[in-house]
């Protein structure tokens, strides 16, 4: 009999009941909750007179609507200028109080983007099943947890039953062999993968990311990769547990302590795919081939190396694809054949559940240190992923580096990744963004998003157009 994949192991360990019709009841260890996709679920519980199955399995924090300026934040709920947003955040507070769910509210130092907060608090542990009413829940797979986004009906279902009705996905392995070149990051890996397999390439699969380049990543880098599994169509991404994972978890508030930690760690280290496990699809990339990536279109698969150019739809043989390119270029206001490096930028956004952790901020700060944001850049935002990330960054003096270079240092939240708060990309403006989606209107009505790594976004802020961050890093090395 063939061995098991990591996904098979996580599935089997949480299987409550296999039903004859092919569906299964899967036990859920943790539900993360934010203000946007939960109010209707709580309302559903209330209308049916139901209570949470296990209130302490839930952890909530508001993130999508939260303002990011200091002045607004200093006023708490009243600082949320949009009354509709304010009601949504207040509703989360009220619901968590009513149903006995722990909430790190907007005034709590630990508040932040739900996918940054979960791992940071140790509320995400290897071997868990995790859901959240947010597609970027795939992030938590970086710790060897089976984690995926669900809709609001399923948020309610998990609250009420601690289970999810699921059909098992197929197994895909994406292996990135070899070592990354300097200046190439986790973000570039995952954008290159999406460019390769397409935004629907992972539909119906759970993707396990493996290979030397993945294993060499820090846990934060691994989160960036798994975060964007959904951008390749996969609800869940996974990375095998190793010592890096265990070391990351030790000492976090929700994590077990003392002897129980050691026992847990022994169990967690078994969470790897067996060497003879069967994958339904295997994709192999060579890390050495990956160079910094920039998206030029309106889907994350519309991506090119920074050394490349905007494609020409007339050169595309598939008529459907050619039409997609045409629509995207029209929206983006770009001409075929334009060098990626010649794309001029108006706004820079460093943040989001993809890239707002301390290492992301360090990477961006290293690039802007001692330099100035180009005068053509109208707005450059740095939005830390949580209050604790912010505190750490300030302890390291990163805030000062950003401010001196001319970037704005903000309070934690989802911010301009999806622009539900006041941080919106104006129509027609080009933004170098470390977020995860370049869909039409995603960062603001008519806004034009280019997805990049934090270092690439920082370099773009300095030059006012895309540059190959590897050149800047060389320059920095020479200066030191």
């Amino acid at each position, binding site marked *: 009999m063939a061995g098991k994949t990591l996904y098979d192991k996580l599935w089997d360990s949480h299987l409550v009941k296999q039903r004859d019709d*092919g569906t299964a009841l899967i036990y859920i260890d943790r539900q993360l909750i934010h203000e946007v996709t939960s109010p209707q679920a709580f309302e559903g519980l209330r209308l049916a007179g139901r209570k949470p199955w296990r209130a302490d399995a839930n952890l909530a924090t508001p993130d999508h609507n939260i303002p990011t300026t200091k002045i607004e934040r200093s006023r708490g709920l009243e600082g949320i200028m949009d009354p509709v947003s304010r009601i949504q955040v207040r509703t989360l507070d009220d619901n968590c109080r009513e149903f006995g769910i722990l909430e790190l509210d907007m005034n709590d130092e630990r508040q932040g983007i739900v996918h940054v907060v979960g791992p940071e608090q140790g509320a995400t542990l290897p071997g868990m099943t995790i859901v959240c009413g947010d597609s970027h829940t795939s992030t938590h797979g970086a710790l060897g947890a089976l984690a995926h986004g669900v*809709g609001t009906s399923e948020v309610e279902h998990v609250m009420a039953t601690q289970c999810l009705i699921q059909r098992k996905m197929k197994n895909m392995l994406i292996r990135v062999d070899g070592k990354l070149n300097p200046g190439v990051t986790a973000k570039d890996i995952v954008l290159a993968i999406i460019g390769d397999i397409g935004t629907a390439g992972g539909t119906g699969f759970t993707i396990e990311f493996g290979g030397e380049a993945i294993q060499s990543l820090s846990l934060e880098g691994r989160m960036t990769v798994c975060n964007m599994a959904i951008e390749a169509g996969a609800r869940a991404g996974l990375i095998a547990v190793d010592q890096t994972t265990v070391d990351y978890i030790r000492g976090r508030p929700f994590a077990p302590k003392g002897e129980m930690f050691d026992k847990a760690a022994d169990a967690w280290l078994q969470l790897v795919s067996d060497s003879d496990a069967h994958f339904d699809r295997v994709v192999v990339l060579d890390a050495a081939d990956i160079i910094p990536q920039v998206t030029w279109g309106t889907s994350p698969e519309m991506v090119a190396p920074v050394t490349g150019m905007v494609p020409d739809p007339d050169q595309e043989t598939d008529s459907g694809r050619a039409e997609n390119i045409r629509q995207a270029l029209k929206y983006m206001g770009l001409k075929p054949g334009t060098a990626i490096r010649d794309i001029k930028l108006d706004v820079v956004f460093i943040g989001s559940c993809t890239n707002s952790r301390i290492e992301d901020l360090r990477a961006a700060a290293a690039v802007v240190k001692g330099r100035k944001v180009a005068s053509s850049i109208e707005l450059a935002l740095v939005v830390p992923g949580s209050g604790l990330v912010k505190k750490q960054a300030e302890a390291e003096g990163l805030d000062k580096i950003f401010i001196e270079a001319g970037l704005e240092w903000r309070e934690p939240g989802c911010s301009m990744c999806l622009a539900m708060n006041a941080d919106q990309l104006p129509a027609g403006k080009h933004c170098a963004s470390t977020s995860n989606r370049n869909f039409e209107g995603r960062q603001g009505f008519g806004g034009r998003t280019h997805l990049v790594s934090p270092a690439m976004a920082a370099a773009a802020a300095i030059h006012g157009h895309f540059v190959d961050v590897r050149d800047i890093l060389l320059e920095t090395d020479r200066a030191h």
Partner: protein
Amino acid sequence: MKKFSVHTGLALPLDRANVDTDFIIPKQFLKSIKRSGFGVNLFDERRYLDKGEPDADNSKRPLNADFVLNQPRYQGASVLLARQNFGCGSSREHAPWALEDFGFRVLIAPSFADIFFNNCFKNGLLPIVLDKKIVDQLFNEVNAVEGYTLAVDLQAQTITRPDGSTLAFEVDAFRKHCLLNGLDDIGLTLEDADAISVFENQWRDKSPWYFTLPS
């Protein structure tokens, strides 16, 4: 949940691949704490020429006459014909809520994104996957014939075209059962409450670290 058994309706072709849920319902409308009322903002950024706001009077907003939803021949449509990977992106259930609230009951595409596909079934909306060639054919027919309607029978798993010919489709047995009977999943799952408790106790004994509270 709303039942679905048979539905006959005018088909509307949305000729665009990878329609994401931001396209279906932009983020500013997600601030609502209700489940209804999203239909007027379905495809908002294409449907109107200006930027929509949650409290705007939509009847006063300028319409984009080129957008298929605004074309006179498609008024009253309830069957959406779409391209591959429909519903990709965010998990927002507001996307199926908006489609359903607008009046769509059936979606036909060569493929759907997983989370969106799943969310549809929770809201009495039937997403049907058909072979790309057949979907291409349907697009051609809808474009060619004004008033093109399709009749969908979930029990029989068939789609009947205006000429009387039928197309078969696949649907998950459990989802079909829930849709046909308008069943609430939570109620069904709670019938297994004992099995869940047994599992939970065993799991807690085996892996107590998943049940610890923050220090």
